[in-house]
């Protein structure tokens, strides 16, 4: 690619990354509201189950380590993308997807177990806020997994173009961001719940 076009593409990447970063900040603010609602409502269990009873330490640790590792593999995928190593990008993206799906299945089973016991969001304000906060995070992970699949399809079919590499960068911002939000869910919801 000639120098002028390269400069144009770099400029475009810079602007697109900037815009996406602002969007991520708005997403963070939306999570802030959910955290605030959780903080205010977490003791309003209306005689029902409390967070202390929900907290299953090794299970949550497992979820956390899965997500953290997926953030790591995502980062490695980016490094390989910078080296234009299509094969390794596909491998590490796939690994990220598998770990992400692992996280989701664990969270899904946690939800299913609670629902089975009648501990639904409709049972109390605490449960409403618990499920909404963790569920919204889970929905974002689902979107991320879907995003990986679309990107894998594109890369496998037409390789690592500048446009695709750009989207990969945006995805990595998104995925790292979700892991960061999870740190706080892990700490504030589960660990502090265990301390209560």
């Amino acid at each position: 690619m000639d120098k002028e076009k390269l400069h144009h593409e770099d400029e475009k990447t810079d602007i697109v990354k900037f815009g996406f970063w602002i969007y991520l900040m708005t997403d963070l603010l939306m999570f802030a509201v959910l955290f605030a609602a959780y903080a205010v409502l977490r003791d309003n269990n209306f005689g029902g189950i409390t967070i202390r009873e929900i907290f299953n330490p090794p299970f949550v640790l497992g979820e956390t380590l899965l997500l953290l590792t997926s953030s790591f593999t995502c980062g490695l995928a980016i490094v390989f993308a910078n080296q234009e190593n299509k094969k390794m990008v596909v491998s590490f993206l796939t690994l990220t997807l598998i770990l992400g799906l692992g996280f989701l299945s664990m969270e899904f089973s946690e939800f299913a177990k609670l629902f089975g016991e009648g501990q639904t969001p409709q049972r109390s304000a605490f449960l409403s806020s618990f499920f909404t906060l963790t569920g919204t995070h889970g929905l974002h992970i689902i979107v991320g997994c879907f995003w990986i699949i679309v990107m894998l399809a594109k890369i496998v079919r037409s390789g690592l173009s500048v446009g695709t590499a750009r989207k990969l960068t945006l995805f990595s911002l998104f995925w790292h961001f979700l892991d960061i939000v999870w740190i706080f869910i892990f700490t504030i919801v589960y660990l502090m719940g265990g301390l209560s």
Partner: protein
Amino acid sequence: MMEFIFGRLTWSSLPHEWFTIGGTIAMSGMMISAIALVTYLKRWKWLWREWLTTVDPKKIGIMYVIVASLMLFRGGLDAGMIWLQQAISVGSSHGYLNADHFQQIFTAHGVIMVFFVTMGFLFGLLNFIVPLQIGARDLASPFLNTLGFWLYVAGAILINLFFVFGGEFAATGWLAIAPLSELQYSPGVGVDFWIWSLQVSGLGTLLGGINFIMTIIKKRAPGMTMSRLPLFTWTSLFGMILVVSIFPILTATITLLSLDRLLGFHFFTTDMGGNAMMYTNLIWMWGHPEVYILILPSFGIYSEVITTFSQKKVAGYTSMVLAGALIAFIAMLVWLHHFFTMGSGADVNAFFGISTAFIAIPSGVQIFNWISSMYKGKIRYEVPMYWFLGFAILFMIGGTAGVLLSVPSADFQLHNSLFLVAHFHTMIIGGALFGIFAGITYWFPKVTGFKLHERLGQYAFWCWLVGFIVSFTPLYILGSMGAARRLDHYDVSTGWQPLFILAGFGFLIILTGAMLHVVQIAVSIMQREKLKDTTGDPWNGRTLEWSTASPPPFYNFALVPRVTSRDAFWEMKKNEKIIENPKYEDIEMPKNTALGIYVAAFVFLIGFGMVWHLFWLVAIGFIGGIVCVIIRTFDEDTEYVVTAEQVKKMEGGRKIYG
């Protein structure tokens, strides 16, 4: 099965009251006339190509202003209905509206005026003017721009759609406070229409906010450092920063409300541990900075107007920018003053009372700087200056009323009284709307190529100013006498009726002003040859937008301007920096796209489906929207080239400053 297909829709959802039938007929009538006109003129292809799929922010800006004007008449109609009811519903008479209907009207009035009128006008002006002021050719993301506009339109349609389907709007006040807005007390579709029209248009606003920040930060012309930005761009930036800071809060909060309503969650319910006060807290966290979003761009407009018509640079540019930033910052710290009376106690109330009073300081800086900017200037009293002077008078009154209200103990008397209503209308009409009118008058020649009729503009102004004073001074008095807001009926013994009637006369004067605006536009169009702007710089302006032709070519600038100072164009004119033998270049411009309107249409389906529990429709909307977005993101061919030859031809030898 039927329930799956039709959700909550039944035959009785269709219009069967006088106002729903009337509203449906009116809206269908307008739509049919528009369709007939376009068909008669054989302009469908043109409409689609030039307007509906455009990414040109100048055209998008014009469309925003048109939709906002239509919504202004709807909101104004609501205001008239409120006035009439309150003027006659005394003692044994209960007016012509029952309480529930009255409540729906004032709710709709507030939502429409805030979200669809003021925000619409502001986004219109920002779209047209900001890129020109910073020497850019377009916003950072043309696609997000068109998408944002069509989401705004989708929201505007949704909020008017209850006339046709459902027959009821929210009867909760414009912010739908819980628990009144919860399913238990508002079981119908009204609150759902409120929720989903705001979710849809709110998404558009958020995307617009992101887009403008990207544009102002990253797409300035070379040499246009932040310290050389025009003040309108600065205050618009602050407004957009507030948008991205608070609209996520709105989205999250009304999502929680809709979870309560749709799925039986318990965030704000009165039972099962819900806490309705949390709704009030969260919604005002959004609501207060929102009103600063409404006013900040107008502050910028006043700065532009004063400096142009006093032919002087602004006094204290740095302090103006800092004051604007401080206003935006403090705006985030005052929200509790909307619920002093909810009982958070002295400590909390004191903190927020003080922070609220503090906002008067940077506002004062702005006012003093404006006056200083005029001092010893060669002042020309064109219509935009009239609007500024009207603003100055009204803002003093309304602002002082605000400082009064910021004292918690005073607020305990005046909270939710007509005094409060008078205060915020003074700020929004006297502050934001007058600024918008000033901006529209000021920039009208740039947009259309001809000025607005001067005399009619003056008449319209006087009607608005006098009408406002006649309409709202009685409300300040009534509020101090103890009259609460949102009353659909009151006792004769209060002695309030004469003041309500006087307020009504004020409304009629304002209405005359609005009609004069319409006449002004019609007459200006008819006299456009006489009022023509041939140079592109009809006011001897100071900022870059005046360096272009009126209207500007679609690419804004043939050559990207090189900026060396504040008031960039003024300096260029002063130093006669004309480029001899300009070397025209190829210009890359974004292609039009229909995906903005398509995605918005799918999102509209989601909104409508959610209101009526047509979940299959929601799914279609969701999938359709996602597919369109994916198509767009994989489209590598979104730009086209305007060759240097074509540019040269379109410029036609026009002087280029640089």
